[in-house]
Structure formats: C-alpha cells, structure tokens
C-alpha cells in the first residue's frame, strides 16, 4: 500500500472508529484487550495503542463508562460499557451513515 492510500484509509477510519467502538459496545461490554484485538482483526485500527486515547476521550465525553468485573484469571477486569449518551450518538450516526453511505455507493457505482 502506498503512503497516500494509507493516509486516505487512516483519515476515513478516524471519523468512523468512534462509532464502530460504540456499535461493538452496544452489543456487549468488552475489556480493553478484547476490544483492541477485535478492531485490529477488522482492520479498523493499525495498532492497539491508537484505541486507548480514543477510549479515554470517549470516557471524558461521557459516551462510554468503565466498570470492574471479575474475570476467569481471578483478577477483576476493567470493562467498557456504552452510556445512554453514547447510545444516542450511535443512533444519530446510523441515520447519517445510511444517508451518506447510500449516496456515496450510488456515486461510486460502475467506477473501478
């Protein structure tokens, strides 16, 4: 992949990553490592390190919250959960994405 396509991909992912995290958390609470591994497998983040500044900011904005839960390893784990505000934002995003995504798909139709 060339530098410019990589930059394009990074920029595009950056805008939607926050909502991908909200979408994952809306299904179930996740702990950090699990969330990071999932996002990397989906090629939504390039390195695990880029998830935490995002999660921290979302925590500060009140979109997600953390809670401790017992884990199999015996030590309690920090889980991330979506808040009511986060759910609101996710719902708005779904509407916007459907509209924009539909238009973009239509415009790109037939282009190699």
């Amino acid at each position: 992949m060339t530098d410019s396509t990589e930059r394009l991909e990074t920029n595009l992912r950056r805008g939607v990553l926050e909502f991908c995290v909200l979408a994952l958390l809306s299904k179930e609470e996740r702990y950090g490592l699990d969330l990071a591994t999932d996002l990397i497998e989906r090629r939504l983040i390039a390195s695990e390190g880029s998830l935490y500044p995002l999660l921290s900011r979302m925590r500060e904005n009140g979109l997600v919250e953390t809670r401790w839960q017992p884990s199999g390893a015996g030590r309690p784990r920090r889980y991330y959960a979506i808040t009511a505000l986060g759910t609101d934002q996710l719902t708005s995003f779904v509407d916007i994405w459907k509209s924009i995504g539909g238009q973009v798909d239509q415009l790109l139709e037939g282009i190699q």
Partner: protein
Amino acid sequence: MNTHDTYLDEIRRRLDGLTPSQRETVLDDLRGHLADAADAGRSQEETQAALGTPSEIAQRSYEEFGGAPSAVDRAWRVLLWTATGTAVMLAAVVAFLMPSYQVSTSNGPYENIETLSLVDAFGPGIALLALIPAAIAVAPLLVPERLHAVITLTAAIATTAFVIIAGFSIGGYFAPVAMLAWAAVITPWRLRIAGGFGFGWRIAAAAVIIAPVLVWLAGISTGAIAWGAVTVIPMIISAALAALIAMGYRAAGWAVAAFGAITLVSVILNFGMLALGVIAAGGLLLTVGLAHALGARR
C-alpha cells in the same frame, strides 16, 4: 522499576500538554490493557510493541483531546521564536537606524556634523555581524529533536557570550535575546520537572516587576517624584500584576510580556541616551512575562 513502569512514565512525560485528568484517564486505560495482556500470557516486549511507541500514543492522545502540543514544547518554541524576532528587530535598529557615528565635514567656513548609522559608516557587512544573535537564537529550532536541549543551552551561553564580548560596542543591545534564550532553557525544564513555576520562581518574577515601583516610591518619599495619577496608576498596575504573577495567574504574564514588547518597539521609534537601559528593561519584562505565561500552572 520494570519496563512497563518505564514505558508508562515515558508516556506520562509526553502527555504533559493534557490536563491532569485527561492524562490519568489515558494512563489508566493503558494500565488496564497491560494487565489484561499479562493475564493473556503476552510478554512485556510483545505488549508494548503492539501498543506502539510512547511518542505514537502521545500523538494520538493530542489528536483526540484537541491537538494541543505539549506545554513544554510550546513554551520552548514560543520563547525561541520571540528571541529570534527580537534579535532581528534589534539588529535592524543597531545596524540601520541607530545614529552611532558623528562625522564632521568642513565646507568652507562652516562645519557640518553628519550623523551616520553603523551601515552608513562601515558598509552592509556590519548588518551581518548584527544578525549573529538572531542566527544563534533560531539554531535550536532547526536541529533534530534529540539535539534540542543541548543546542538550546548552547544558544543561551553563546548569546550571553556575544552580549559580553561585544559589550564595548553593540553587544549590550542584545541582552533581551540572551534573556529569552535562558528562558527557553529554564521554562521547559521547570515544566518538565515540576509542571510549571513553583512559588520561589514566581516570587522572583514578581520582584522584577515590582522593582520599578519601589524605585518610584523612594523617589516620591524624597520628593524627587510628585504624587499624581501619572505616577500612581502605573504603580498600582505593576503591583497588581506582580501579585497576580506571584499567585500564578497566566494572564498576568501575557500582560507583562505585552508591556515589555511595547517598550522594546518604542525604542525603534525613539532612541535616545536611555536606549540601552530601556532595551534591557523591556527585554526583562518581555522575558519574565512570557516565561510566566507559558510556564504557569493555571
């Protein structure tokens, strides 16, 4: 100290441009990840490699939290650019504007006294000499990041040396550049070590600002200066700014810096016998005000 502590410390150091609560949130989230990764049987090296370097994580954090560059880096940059700008301005004053030489030409029975600037007297080469402090002040901004600290210290020492060595001619005019260069060494250092200027430093800054007030008060008590709005109002303003700086308010630093800058610029418009003293005083206020504004804790 194990390697995770070192890793987190390095990240904490690079996040000093964030608020303490933002910084703690990021570190907290990372600590959770490190513990999870250890439980999953990953080695410390593996975990850190997957997370990325402290500088990458810091950069992402600044992108998320508003892209503010670190306070340390900002203080260093602003002080050095101010030193460079001041040096260029002073070079222009010293080489082109300041009447330095009087030449008498006799024209029959009359004698004309002509006033020449340094460039008039010695040619354009002298302007290059006057630009040496500017070249020194800008140098740390142009070198790779790992050399920043050592070249900034070198620049502070070199500009000071220029002021002293060339002191018999033009050196003294460049005292503000040396002051700003030292501020570019000291302010980032205090920010790094102590998160800003502590009480002792702020009292010293306040003393610099209050000093003229004490001189005026002495003048009034001996009757050399009369009471009046013209003397009292500036005294009250200086005392208030000094108090606010001692308490650590950032805005007071900007006000003092602006006053120092205006003083320096006024030298261009009107250079008399007092030029050297005015430049030193303006430079000192600019330096102390700017360093406080960039290194304040609130």
